[in-house]
């Protein structure tokens, strides 16, 4: 068998393959849920988009995590995040067989397990055949490499954009230019029409959703809103800015958050911990354990780049700016962490290093530096939420206990 050529590219078979996995793992709802109404909407939206992607006539674009999906929606395609689907499977404890598959097929165990898991799902032919594969180098080189070899696997056209690291006029021009060209290239490859008006519409939806997203974050500053931080993380990860359903989702969450904020019991109280780095599902033992003691909010959804509205008069340039701001960058990340700590009243930080994520590992010392300057307690944990061979709760439990204890004492 050559793993780099999918022999059965019929989406019905691929759907069957995926369904078998879901059934074997007894997964009914492929979505991490809180008790919020927004969470149920997201769950339905995910289920709908999932089934739609397997339909023979749907146009599916594989994308990497931080791809500017407004561009994909503008062409009427369904973006399929190759990594996040595998993460969802892992959250339900079904990643083992995929990880094993990669191990049998020359994939080094030193590679980040999120990527190995994703490659395993692709090797098992569980994803819907893509019409096109898209990548930028965000969040990491290795994910864009995975996207490229995936395109070989399915013999699909591959398009990429390089996101520069520094933010200045030249880099914005360069990136905006690449995006403009990408739209034309994609349309030509798929034999589709592209109208700028379609991008204007998706930008409008994106901004509308952002509006609610930012308003919810504002509430999160001053209130303890159970489930809201988790839902923000999920919305961030879903990266569905650009479709009307996401506006509905963000609006619902905001309304729920607003209602909650009116209740006296939801005034800020207790210790607040910021989770930096990969976070497991809310049902994961680590999360349950920590959240029993303190309120946890997640760093990634609070990055400045998430607050940015797109400029309707120059969408490419503003999408470019957002993309550059998403890039791992020590100075920008340090400044943002310091700001988030002040704005959200952070008492402690959990720096979660996922196995093989050397970007996060290499930035951790700089994050600890910010904690030192701000005199904020921190805990660094090495975890793996995908490959069970690399992680055991017992290995981190004592350190979490000590961290929580210190936090409690600083309360006195």
């Amino acid at each position, binding site marked *: 068998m*050559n*793993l*780099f050529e999918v022999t059965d590219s019929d989406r019905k078979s691929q759907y069957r393959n995926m369904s078998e996995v879901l059934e074997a793992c007894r997964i009914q709802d492929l979505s991490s849920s809180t008790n919020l109404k927004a969470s149920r909407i997201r769950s339905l939206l995910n289920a709908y988009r999932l089934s739609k992607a397997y339909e023979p006539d749907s146009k599916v674009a594989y994308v990497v995590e931080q791809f500017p999906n407004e561009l994909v929606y503008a062409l009427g395609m369904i973006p399929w995040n190759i990594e996040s689907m595998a993460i969802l499977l892992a959250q339900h404890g079904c990643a083992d067989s995929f990880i094993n598959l990669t191990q049998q*097929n*020359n*994939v*080094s165990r*030193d*590679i*980040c397990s999120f*990527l190995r898991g994703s*490659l395993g799902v692709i090797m098992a032919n569980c994803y819907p055949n893509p019409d096109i594969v898209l*990548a930028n*180098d965000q969040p*990491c*080189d*290795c994910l*864009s*490499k*995975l996207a*490229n*070899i995936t395109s*070989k696997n399915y013999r699909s056209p*591959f398009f*990429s954009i*390089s996101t*520069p*690291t*520094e933010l200045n006029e*030249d*880099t914005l021009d*360069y990136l905006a*230019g*690449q995006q403009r*060209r990408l739209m034309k290239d994609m349309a030509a490859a798929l034999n589709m029409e592209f109208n700028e008006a379609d991008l204007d519409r998706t930008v409008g939806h994106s901004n509308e959703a952002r509006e609610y997203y930012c308003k919810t974050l504002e509430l999160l500053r001053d209130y303890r809103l159970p489930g809201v931080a988790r839902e923000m993380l999920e919305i961030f990860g879903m990266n569905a800015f650009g479709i009307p359903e996401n506006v509905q989702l963000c609006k619902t969450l905001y309304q729920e958050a607003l209602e909650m904020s009116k209740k006296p019991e939801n005034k800020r109280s207790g210790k607040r911990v910021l989770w930096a780095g990969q976070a497991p599902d809310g049902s994961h033992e680590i999360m349950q354990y920590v959240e029993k003691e303190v309120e946890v909010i997640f760093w990634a959804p609070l990055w400045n780049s998430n607050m940015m509205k797109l400029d309707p008069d120059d969408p490419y340039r503003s999408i470019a700016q957002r993309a550059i701001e998403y890039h*791992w*960058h*020590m*100075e920008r990340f340090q400044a943002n962490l310091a700001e988030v700590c002040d704005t959200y009243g952070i008492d402690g930080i959990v720096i979660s*290093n996922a196995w*093989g994520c*050397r*970007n996060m*590992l*290499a*930035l*951790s*010392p*700089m994050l600890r530096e910010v904690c030192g300057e701000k005199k904020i307690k921190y805990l660094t944990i090495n975890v793996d939420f995908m490959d069970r061979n690399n992680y055991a709760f017992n290995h981190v439990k004592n350190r979490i206990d000590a961290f929580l204890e210190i936090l409690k004492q600083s309360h006195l």
Partner: protein
Amino acid sequence: MIEQAEIFALMNRNRAEFVKSAGRPAIGWLSIYTPEEILDAAGLVPFRITGEFAQNTSEAGSMLCSNFCSYLLHSLSEGIEGIYDFADGMVIVDECDWRKRLYEAWKKQLNPPFTYFLELPKVITPESKAYFRLQLKKWVAALESHYQIQITGEALRRSISLHNETRTLLQRLYKLRQSDRSPVTGMEALQIMKAATAGRKEEFNRELARFLDDVEARNEPQAKPHRVLVCGSYFDQPELVEIIEQTGARIVCEDTSIGIKYAEGRIEENEDPLTAIADYYLEKATCARMYDSDIRLNHLLDLIETYKADSVIYFTLKFCDIYLMDYPYVMSRLQQQGISVLFIEGEQQMSNIQSIKTRVQTFLETRMF
């Protein structure tokens, strides 16, 4: 002959002393996509940081992380240990994520007078070439302002020609290795390729020309060896080269940055110098950092054919994610063409050399006999 090869080994061993004694400011570099021509035209001494002199990587490990590309950890350790204190700084090309993190750590923790991060696109298009040229222009401006100099077109042209001469000589070396009985050993080639980046181009060119004249005159009848091509990430592994060649096989080409990738092509001398430099460096980018893995794969397949390689050894440093991620794909394509590949994951200073030795011997011996 051994004596002559030893000249190159000495150039490597003494690279710091030599660069120091040149009496001009020196700038270290890590990536072969660093246009040395620009540094040279600025009157500086460009030299490659090899990481081989570091004693201990624990401090570098705590600044970055210990599960990191060991070439970069060793390079940072050399910086920490003061081996490059004589140099004005570093230029780090955006070759992979880890180099971005290295740049940040180097600048923050060591903060030499001139540290520069040069962005290099991952696709080859007219737009990316124009963008890379713009980056080079900015870099030139930064050098001019830091050193209060002017980098003239004439100086650039002179430097391009000097570096092209190095390329021509190195290509002559590789041409010799294409013959059925390659007269150059893998160890000689490794020393030569490293010496090429030791900051003494004129002297290197003279020595290499002499070496090539001698080798071409050599008339040592030998048995036709089993021909090995090494490809992969940063490869500076004399022990591994020795192990391979002790089996009776001969390394005929290294598709690595201390190998043919450094020597390929030439810069157009009759064009606008910056445009020519930008085009050259971007066009020759055939490593795993480029988005499209087929760029490297197709280049590798051409090399396998040109060098009539019987076996391929795919070497990657541990934690070099881009080469690791590329491997299953590249391997499957090579196997489809009936090419045997041995995969080795190692470190800059290998601790597991014994087990690697057994694997290499088993792989090659079963193919040779």
